[in-house]
């Protein structure tokens, strides 16, 4: 029954392999990220987006309504817009269509990007006035 003599070290090696794998720091990091993302306590009610968004919208509308009914406050929106067009600073540059201009990311906010096989780069471009976000992985040899 020679084969059964050697089962012991093989099964011991098998157990050791699994034990070493689960003790890897990456497994712990993945676990923590997983729990934090999906199974952590939600914020207090009044800090949640479901409350804050309409509440703040309502507050803004109330503010504008106040201004509407009392037009003697110092803010004069119409006059300021005319000033911007005269200076031609922000609006014209964004609409230039130059794809090398980096514009502020309004549409997409990249919270995290990683790659195990290459270098990730994030580009914010303008395409006919529309902001476009591109995430590109350079794996050596591929140029966009």
């Amino acid at each position, binding site marked *: 029954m020679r084969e059964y003599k050697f089962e012991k070290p093989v099964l011991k090696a098998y157990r050791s392999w699994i034990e070493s794998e689960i003790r890897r720091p990456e497994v712990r990091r993945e676990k923590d990220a997983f729990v934090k993302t999906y199974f952590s306590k939600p914020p207090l009610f009044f800090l949640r987006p479901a409350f804050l968004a309409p509440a703040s919208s309502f507050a803004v509308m109330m503010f504008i309504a106040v201004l509407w009914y009392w037009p003697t406050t110092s803010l004069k929106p119409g006059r300021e817009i005319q000033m911007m067009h005269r200076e031609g600073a922000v609006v014209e540059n964004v609409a230039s269509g130059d794809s090398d201009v980096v514009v502020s990311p309004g*549409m997409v906010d990249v919270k995290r990007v990683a790659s195990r096989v290459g270098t990730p780069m994030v580009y914010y471009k303008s395409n006919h006035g529309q902001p476009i*976000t591109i*995430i590109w992985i350079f794996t050596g040899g591929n140029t966009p």
Partner: protein
Amino acid sequence: MRKLSFFVLSAVLISLWINPSLQAAERVRVKVQVLTASNEGTDFNLVNDAYRDQLIELFSYSHYEQEEPVLVSLQRAERSKIDLPDGYELILTLQAVESNRVLVQALIRREGRQYVDTVLSILNPGVVFLGGPPVGANGALIIVLETGF
């Protein structure tokens, strides 16, 4: 008239406030468009020309092949897997839905190797391009994710 407009707007906002389902919706639809780009040939085999101008302006490839777009319904705490050309996989996971943005994790991998792992806060509606995983001799995969469907 002004008073009427004001009260109508207020009523709309209050109704949004008391209707949690609109703000707390945990299902989002994302359109996934798969393109394969290369410099072999000059064809634009696109199902529609919606991306043609953008692709020409943003990238320097001469040839594009487009797959049929896929509309994926993402639910919080569920992964959705989309098979891509050349053995790649796209895994999308909805992490959160905020008032006008969606937080999505997008992972592109092949044979256990992770090419892209990104978490994006995308305006709803919005669009983002993911690209770079090599295809063929000198081509690349480009994925277009669009929200707001």
